[in-house]
């Protein structure tokens, strides 16, 4: 390539403008802004830092068994690579960078906010050619303002999603959806295919519901074969198809063949009534992003009517090239709903006949997928109406109105006052100091060993099980933490 074809900035101001226009910088900006928004929406994970639910046990596992063993075997039923990556990152950040392992809950909170920020901002980076820029930002805004049940106070369940490591797995469905969309419309070379497939592999090794989504990646090959008469040999030799095959083999190697057993729950699955399924699948999963302000006024009949209306609108007033995408979005939501009805039937009881939206973590990802589908549809409508100058802005205006309503009904300044607080009040640090003094050292299996590399810390009245941390890390944290502030913590705790 000759130098004359390459445009280099000659002035600093031009270079700045180029950076600001670059998709990567816009993605980083969107992620940073979303991180702050998510922190404002659920500050409790950072303000009252505790290792929430399984984050507590996974921290012990990562410290004693290492990253890969925990990621692949922490659960009996599927792998949780993504969750454990966040927990591992938090431990490293707290221990190695910060020098205080007891800051791990706060580090995990920040990493989790940032992760959700990345998820919300993915369309800005990857879907720029599929959606017009304004619609990418509309998708970002809708993801940032997705309601998490404030209208069923005090059961607002955003506190257990945002800022936690345990519930990020659900969001990998959204990541997989965007990656599959990007792969099917953009990827041409084996390099980019391999990169995207590596991302898809992480998604599948975190949330097994992503595995069926992979079937959608065959669509371009199928289209070439059926529509354009490409030979089967040509299709199979296509490098993106080869990368896909490697991905599928990797998924089976990591996850094994999916099983219908429920090792997590010993009891039999709860059967779901027709009304319960309609509520779970259609009301809570499919139409919720549009109807959530009136969720409590819904019934089975109204939900079915709204779903039918939405499907008709999506099927009729859409660009033909977007139909597969819209079908994939609706299909993904329904697939998750069927799996939930089969494996987590008790959720229908939690929803209680349009009374609650808790637990929102089970429905958050479907709502985001549905939102993306709606944004794609709106973008298509705007494209159709491009000649009608003002009308072409109407779909975008509609999306912005939905986001504004969400922000109006679920404003951060109300949320911070309504969160379920858990407080260890420095108990972990105090208990660790005591365990260090009393030499409660154990080996990797939890057996008492005076030379063991781990400290076993039991915080009375906080969690039933102990947490095991690396002895070296605890000692370093005790040294790093000034004595006077430790005394203040102890004094507070004693009170």
């Amino acid at each position: 390539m000759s130098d004359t074809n390459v445009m280099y900035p000659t002035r600093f101001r031009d270079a700045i403008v180029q950076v600001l226009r670059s998709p990567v910088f816009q993605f980083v900006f969107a992620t940073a802004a979303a991180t702050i928004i998510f922190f404002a929406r659920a500050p409790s994970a950072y303000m009252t830092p505790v290792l929430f639910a399984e984050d507590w046990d996974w921290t012990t596992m990562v410290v004693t068994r290492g990253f890969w063993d925990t990621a692949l075997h922490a659960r009996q039923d599927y792998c949780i690579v993504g969750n454990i990556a966040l927990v591992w990152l938090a431990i490293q950040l707290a221990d190695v960078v910060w020098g205080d392992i007891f800051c791990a809950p706060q580090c995990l909170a920040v990493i989790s906010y940032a992760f959700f920020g990345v998820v919300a901002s993915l369309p800005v980076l990857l879907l720029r050619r599929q959606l017009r820029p304004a619609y990418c930002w509309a998708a970002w805004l809708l993801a940032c303002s997705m309601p998490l049940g404030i209208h069923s106070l005090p059961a607002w369940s955003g506190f257990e999603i945002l800022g936690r490591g345990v519930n990020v797995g659900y969001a990998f469905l959204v990541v997989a959806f965007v990656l599959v969309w990007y792969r099917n419309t953009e990827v041409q070379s084996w390099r980019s295919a391999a990169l995207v497939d590596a991302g898809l592999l992480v998604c599948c090794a975190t949330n097994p519901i992503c595995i069926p989504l992979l079937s959608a990646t065959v669509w371009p090959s199928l289209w070439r074969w059926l529509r354009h008469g490409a030979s089967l040999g040509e299709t199979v030799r296509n490098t993106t198809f080869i990368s896909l095959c490697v991905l599928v083999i990797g998924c089976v190697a990591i996850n094994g063949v999916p099983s219908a057993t429920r090792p997590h729950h010993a009891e039999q699955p709860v059967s779901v009534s027709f009304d319960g399924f309609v509520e779970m699948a259609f009301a809570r999963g499919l139409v919720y992003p549009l109807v959530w302000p009136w969720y409590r006024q819904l019934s089975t009949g109204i939900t079915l009517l709204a779903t039918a209306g939405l499907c008709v609108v999506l099927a009729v007033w859409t660009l033909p090239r977007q139909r597969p995408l819209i079908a994939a979005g609706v299909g993904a939501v329904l697939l998750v709903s069927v799996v939930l009805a089969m494996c987590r039937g008790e959720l229908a009881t939690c929803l209680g006949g349009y009374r609650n939206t808790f637990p929102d973590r089970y429905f958050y990802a479907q709502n985001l997928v549905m939102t993306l589908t709606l944004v794609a549809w709106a973008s298509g409508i705007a494209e159709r109406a491009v000649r009608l100058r003002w009308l072409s802005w109407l779909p975008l205006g509609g999306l912005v109105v939905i986001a504004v309503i969400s922000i109006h009904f679920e404003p951060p300044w109300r949320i911070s006052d309504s969160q379920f607080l858990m407080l260890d009040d420095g108990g972990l640090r105090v208990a660790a100091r005591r365990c260090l003094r009393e030499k409660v050292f154990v080996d990797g299996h939890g057996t008492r060993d005076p030379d063991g590399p781990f400290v076993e810390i039991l915080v009375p009245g906080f969690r039933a099980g102990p947490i095991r941390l690396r002895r070296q890390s605890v000692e370093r944290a005790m040294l790093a933490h000034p004595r006077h502030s430790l005394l203040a913590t102890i004094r507070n705790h004693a009170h």
Partner: protein
Amino acid sequence: MSEKRALGRVHECGITIAAWSTCLMALAAVTALGFRGIEAWARPIFDARIEELRRVAREFPSGGVVAAVPLSDGVVVRQDFDAFQDGLCGLRLRVVTWQKTPDPYTCAWSLMRHADDQSTPEIVRCGTFSADVARDWEAITLLFEPVSDSAAVRYTFRIKAGSAEGANLVGVPLYASPGGQRNGARVVRRPHPGKAASGHPQVIPSDAVLALQSLYDEPGW
């Protein structure tokens, strides 16, 4: 000529790197400022709530939780306590909701005064509260007209649960009696087996106590 061009490219690369560094650093600074700003805004709200939790933890029983009684279908829970000064004007009771929003059913409460002559205690104050105001593991406050001569008098606090239509109940946690307390909480009417089977604990020890705190009509409580 080619050297000049190469130098030019190095210069341009330098400008690009400088632009990226500037933009990323500015973004990092703005993000950190935004994060700290949110923290500064939320801190007073959280500090107030944390202080409230600490106060509840200090003043309520410090033993472990041994059970939680779901309040439904006429379940009656009562506990005796001694008022230690005049002006008894309220009670604070820690409740649980099993991380759900309770249904909006009503529970009745009453405060009964024990006379010195061991006769049947008389109701001095009573009222109701709606279950849906309860937050998990937090306290509900029942305020009433101050009892002017409450010092050194034994009272019985009694709750009678109403009927809940749904499965979302409010409950009262029972704590291990600190040092063998004489007046453990008495669950007069046990939960209905059907209700109790829906995931709520059923074992109710006889010597456990409610997390109950008496409030007095004086500045500072």
